[in-house]
């Protein structure tokens, strides 16, 4: 999809890793975790540090963001293929990163929307609401939901 993704390792039914190859090699970890809402899984994404800890705030600037995103989509497809009824929630660890996710979603929405239903959280007068993702809109979403089209 889009650009050739990295080859990933499935460590567990909910945990995946792959290596970003750019200025340096960085092991990326993706974990799907059940939330308090039935059927909604949170997507955690971060860099594996040499000390074994995960950093989901760092900007690695490895020059391969599109390829990384293609790999995340690939993993998302694998996970939702195994669990088609699950909804995946994701957002950036900073608002800047969430905006980056929105830009990427907007760019690849045409292909992405063939596989997933995309919605997002927006702040309205009535509070936090889930609305369909509109790639043409300038609305700022602060979290996204994706669900496989069955």
């Amino acid at each position: 999809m889009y650009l050739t993704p990295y080859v990933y390792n499935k460590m567990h039914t909910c945990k995946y890793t792959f290596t970003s190859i750019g200025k340096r090699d960085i092991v990326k970890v993706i974990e799907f975790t059940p939330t308090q809402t039935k059927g909604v899984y949170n997507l955690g994404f971060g860099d594996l540090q040499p000390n074994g800890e995960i950093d989901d705030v760092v900007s690695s600037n490895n020059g391969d963001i599109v390829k990384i995103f293609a790999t995340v989509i690939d993993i998302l497809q694998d996970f939702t293929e195994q669990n088609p009824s699950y909804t995946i929630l994701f957002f950036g660890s900073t608002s800047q990163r969430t905006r980056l996710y929105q830009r990427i979603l907007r760019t690849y929405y045409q292909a992405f929307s063939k596989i997933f239903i995309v919605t997002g959280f927006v702040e309205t007068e009535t509070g936090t609401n889930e609305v369909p993702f509109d790639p043409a809109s300038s609305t700022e979403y602060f979290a996204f939901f994706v669900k496989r089209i069955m």
Partner: protein
Amino acid sequence: MGVTRKKTMRKRSPKKLAKQNTVFVYVERFPVEETLFPEKLKKANELLARAKMMD
């Protein structure tokens, strides 16, 4: 010889027993300590609560 009465056990329905003896304990669906992204999960649950999407 006197007549000995046979002691009988009253049958009790397992369904009724379960009703009497069931204690409901609230357990978090997924403890934050078990994830690699505890802060993210905490924030996700807060977001869902804000949007009233909690179970």
